[in-house]
């Protein structure tokens, strides 16, 4: 909607600044300040320090960064492969089957993550599927929760891809595997990267299911942050949160640049 009057535009900008400032910037600013606060007894911190970051990097919390990054990468990669595979396969099915299987793929995203964690815990706590207490169950939990999003992203990309590209490639003699690798996947690249980025961001922030299934020695960043803040160590929790935010952002921006270079856009 276009607003032509100057007062109308000013009102809208103020409204936007209030909503954006209060709902988005203020919480992040508080976390940033907390991570740098020496002590905080008034409206603003009494002093600033980087001590919390140093503690976090030296301490066991650094292992959480590694656990989160590895979990995020592997679960997202797995979700990307299976989501892409599913989207490519479903494209060839009839409409009814496509809708049914598509719906099934989306079910985990509609279930609370804690319930997914509980379900996995119960399902994989008895032989022969005894995964309780292993890193694998964390990966599976993340994979289950994020795969719907990769599937959705890739399906949306495929729906926008003109069949002409693949058909022309076939008519020129390209076999299915060659066509997939040289035509379909490169054309889908922006959607694949977006799917991976979204999956990775979701995995990095996942707490509900992870807290139910994580084994000792594989404590992810959100679980560490939750533990620290639960114990009252707010400043260390905030420092860890900032590390989580920066790590996720850096990775997502990197992916975007790689995609832009690859697609020439």
């Amino acid at each position: 909607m276009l607003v032509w009057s100057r007062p109308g535009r000013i009102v809208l900008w103020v409204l936007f600044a209030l909503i954006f400032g209060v709902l988005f910037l203020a919480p992040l600013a508080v976390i940033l300040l907390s991570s740098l606060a020496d002590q905080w007894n008034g409206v603003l911190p009494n002093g600033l320090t980087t001590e919390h970051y140093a503690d976090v990097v030296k301490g066991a919390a650094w292992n959480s960064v590694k656990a989160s990054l590895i979990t995020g990468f592997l679960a997202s990669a797995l979700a990307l492969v299976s989501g892409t595979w599913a989207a490519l396969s479903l494209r060839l099915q009839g409409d009814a089957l496509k809708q049914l299987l598509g719906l099934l793929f989306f079910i985990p995203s509609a279930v609370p993550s804690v319930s997914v964690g509980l379900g996995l815990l119960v399902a994989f706590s008895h032989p022969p599927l005894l995964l309780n207490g292993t890193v694998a169950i964390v990966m599976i939990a993340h994979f289950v929760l994020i795969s719907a999003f990769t599937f959705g992203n890739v399906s949306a990309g495929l729906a926008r891809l003109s069949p002409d590209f693949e058909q022309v490639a076939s008519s020129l003699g390209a076999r299915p595997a060659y066509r997939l690798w040289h035509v379909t996947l490169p054309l889908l690249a922006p959607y694949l990267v977006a799917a991976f980025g979204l999956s990775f961001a979701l995995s990095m922030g996942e707490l509900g299911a992870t807290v139910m299934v994580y084994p000792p020695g594989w404590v992810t960043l959100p679980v560490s942050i939750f533990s620290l803040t639960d114990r009252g160590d707010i400043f260390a929790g905030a420092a860890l949160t900032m590390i989580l935010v920066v790590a996720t952002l850096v990775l997502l921006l990197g992916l975007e640049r790689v995609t832009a270079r690859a697609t020439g856009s």
Partner: protein
Amino acid sequence: MSAVAFTGTSVMDIDAAKVRGAGSNVHFDKVSVAYGAHVVLHPLTLDIAPGEILAMIGPSGSGKTTALRAVAGFVRPASGRIRIGATDVTDLPPYERGLGMVVQNYALFPHMRVEDNVAFGLRAQGADKALIAERVKDALGTVGMSAFARRYPRELSGGQQQRVAIARALAVRPRVLLLDEPLSALDAQIRRNMVEEIARLHRSLPGLTILYVTHDQTEALTLADKIAIMRDGRVCSHGPTTELYRRPPNRFTAEFLGRANLLPVTVEEPVGSKGFATARHGDAVLTGAGRDEKAGDKSLLCIRPQHLSLTADSEHTNRIVGTLREVHWQGELTHLVLDVDGTPVRVSATKLPTALPEPGARVPLFFAPADTSLLPEDAGV
């Protein structure tokens, strides 16, 4: 668009003979296509000779693109067989059919440079690097795009992209080139140029068989050796282009392939030794090229607008009179619309008498028997 025209090259010419030798005729043998209970292509039997350009034209939903896609292998016939040369390709996947295809939106791979697009088919087939380099150079030279080899498709105009799409299809030395409305996305001026350039290209590659699907009758008339006119999933006429235009076998063909005036007549004398019949329209007794009409048959006399003249001469021996209704000046041509006993008759003239009659005036029209064709009155197809 650049003014570069297609330029045939020696390697292409040499290969043309090879292609013809490999058997590049296409044969549809009672090919039908159905989606569930809905038949989109009724049993079609048709031959495209080696080196021939066959244009399939018809309105949307007439089955022309379905027929092309059946040759390409993208739709599976419900019945019938398709042969290319001596090979029955009905059950072969598209990548084993040895075709080249150009589509309406070019479908150039946006992540590849022009040269990589052109090389795509050869790389997919595992050709060696030297051959690929030679063929890419050759194909780009043929379509006048050598200077653009390092560009990405998004850096080219629509006409240039279409040239690259044609080069990409030619680089694999296809047995048959399938063109699916290749010029529809271009504007009118570029389309006219491209039609002429494709015609030149085919002259430089005489062995190349082309199936050209279009809804544009001008493209078909300019390019095709033969035309198949499709309607409701069936071929309603098929034959050499000039023959179909001059002697349309039915009303749909007459009206779809160029403009036609269809004058209802009653045959008085059947076709004589010179191929002409005599027919009556109101008070006028007219002579027209006939087939097997009998005396008393109701027919339509087809006369093209450009064959009607406002002045008589020794050839224009047929005469009808109409009331002038409208005059439309269009620069090169002037269109007159007249009412001849309730039948609208259109005249296209490049030259008009100095004193043009006013609308409402009675105007005599003259035409030559050789420029007419009698066709059945009742058969739409």
